[in-house]
């Protein structure tokens, strides 16, 4: 278990810089979730920590040791790839045993059998151990791929959207399982995802990337409630934060160009008396919640309302902001 630090790390692919001067410290034992849109450098960041990419500038430290020039094997990391990358010529059992048989570990056969058995049990793939890795469903492959990382006790676990191709139930189960494993072995874990539930439920730390740079690091609640920019605010929250002209509801602070309204920041008056006039354009009933699409002076706004609401399309209502977030023209937070 170890602290991971990137210091001024830059990685370019041709003219594109995937990671630009990144400084990131992941404390020992943290569950760091890395969020960011496609192309923000999330996967590249993981690969830089793993040693699959060499930085063009900057240094990588694991457990205080400078590992910039070390091979992936020397760094003692385990990684779950987005594309599974199971060894197709091996069975599930052999895939899980592969890291344990490496020349670095040379685990005794009895020990391998025990660890592989336990891991397979935990991931519920015990009945598939003797199948070829290619004869599995997508979800099973993904679990084997997670298992191949979990059989070891490395300094750092790196996971690149490991739950993305699982069905909802299994994803929920594995979320709990990963969180339990993290608590049990106190491992340092860096986890890339698009999924806000994963970020909110598992993370001790969240890092938001934007165009190869780290926009903000903090606890999941802090990132949600106190984002430093409109970009960070848009990464968390379902439905997404509404970004509207600052003057739509009267005056905001000086310099504010945009008002950011999360669904809970919208106070709705069905009578249409208090606030700016709005028209219901669509009612989306999701069961546990109902999303209300509104039109406020030509701007679309999405908020949540009572699941059993009797509001209908075309109804005139009024909305006003409640504790909104303000951003300047460049998207930075204004307080």
């Amino acid at each position, binding site marked *: 278990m170890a602290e991971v630090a990137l210091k001024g790390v830059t990685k370019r692919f041709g003219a594109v810089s995937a990671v630009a001067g990144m400084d990131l410290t992941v404390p020992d034992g943290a569950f760091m979730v890395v969020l960011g849109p496609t192309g923000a450098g999330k996967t590249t960041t993981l690969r830089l920590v793993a040693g699959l990419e060499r930085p063009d500038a900057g240094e990588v430290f694991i457990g205080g040791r400078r590992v910039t020039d070390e*091979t*992936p*094997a020397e760094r003692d*990391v385990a990684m779950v790839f987005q*594309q599974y*990358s199971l*060894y197709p010529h091996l069975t599930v059992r052999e895939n899980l045993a592969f890291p344990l048989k490496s020349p670095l570990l040379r685990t005794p056969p009895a020990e391998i059998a025990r660890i592989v058995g336990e891991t397979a049990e935990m991931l519920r793939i015990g009945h598939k151990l003797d199948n070829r890795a290619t004869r599995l469903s997508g979800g099973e492959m993904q679990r084997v791929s997670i298992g191949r990382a979990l059989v070891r006790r490395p300094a750092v676990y790196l996971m690149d959207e490991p739950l993305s191709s699982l069905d909802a139930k299994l994803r929920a189960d594995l979320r709990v399982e990963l969180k339990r494993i993290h608590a049990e072995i106190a491992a340092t874990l860096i986890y890339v995802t698009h999924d806000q539930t994963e970020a909110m439920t598992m993370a001790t730390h969240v890092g938001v990337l934007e165009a190869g740079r780290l926009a903000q690091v903090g606890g999941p609640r802090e990132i949600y409630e106190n984002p430093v920019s409109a970009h960070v605010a848009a990464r968390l929250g379902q439905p997404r934060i509404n970004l509207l002209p600052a003057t739509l509801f009267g005056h905001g602070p000086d310099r504010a160009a945009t008002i950011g309204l999360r669904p809970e920041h919208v106070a709705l008056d069905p009578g249409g008396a208090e606030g700016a006039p709005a028209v219901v354009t669509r009612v989306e009933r999701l069961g546990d919640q109902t999303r209300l699409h509104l039109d406020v002076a030509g701007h679309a706004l999405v908020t949540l309302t009572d699941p059993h609401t009797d509001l209908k399309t075309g109804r005139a209502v009024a909305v006003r902001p409640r504790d909104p977030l303000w951003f300047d023209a460049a998207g930075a937070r204004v307080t």
Partner: protein
Amino acid sequence: MSAHSVTEPSPGRKRVAAALVVAYALITLLPLMWIFATGFKSPPDSIAYPPKIAFEPTLEGYVNLFTTRTRVTPEQLQALPPPDGLAETIVRNRDMVIAGPSKFGERFMNSVIIGFGSTFLSIFLGTLAAYAFSRFRIPLSDDLLFFILSTRMMPPIAVAIPIFLMYRTLGLSDTHLGMILLYTAVNISLAVWLLKGFIDEIPREYEEAALIDGYTRFQAFVKVVLPQAATGIASTAIFCLIFAWNEYAFAVLLTSGTAQTAPPFIPTIIGVGGQDWPAVAAGATLFLLPVLVFTVLLRKHLLRGITFGAVRK
């Protein structure tokens, strides 16, 4: 009318396709069957006109292929003890006795050593080179690859005279090593290009996973890349072996004794005591076998799509 899947050809079309394939196979196999049958004919049957389809099979061709014989007078034949073995009996029916073994066995072994030796060397060097070209950023790699391919752009025999002179100076003429090196040099361009194609198809993620799992790059190459390149290696090996096995022109030019392969030897049977077509046919039949066996053994690898489906695209 029975319904059938739109992606499956109808039974009628399947039957027509099968008939065409069988007819084509028969036409291409006819010369082989002819050679095979001639090997078991007696010399008069082998040149009979019209050709004999039904004939009395004999091993005379095979006996003649493996032996040298001397003609004896009927009186001398009478004076000999009774023949021991089938071969001696067949030879004495032609008023001859076996004088000793022929060179065929030796020449055949030369073919085996040189053919398989050069195939092994081509595949060994070709796989390493193909891996490097596929995975590493090599300066001028496109130019190097083109240079490698360009060695195959003229018929190899065009440089026969320089090679002949070079080999004479280096003492490589008529040696196994010389022939292995020569056939490897000709085959290596094919091997590098074919294998690079196959290795390009293997996703890098497998090696990256192995690197992270605690293996060095070379160990990852051996344990992860090679098993998946087996299909490509097998088919490339067959191409290399077929070239080295059948090569005639350089073998005639550069070998005469110790390292002579079977292709230049087989025609020399004609003219040693008449036109012995059954012996030539017997030699050709035996000569076919190793490539056939090698191909059948590797067939399994050619058909197995082992890399299918383990990486999400």
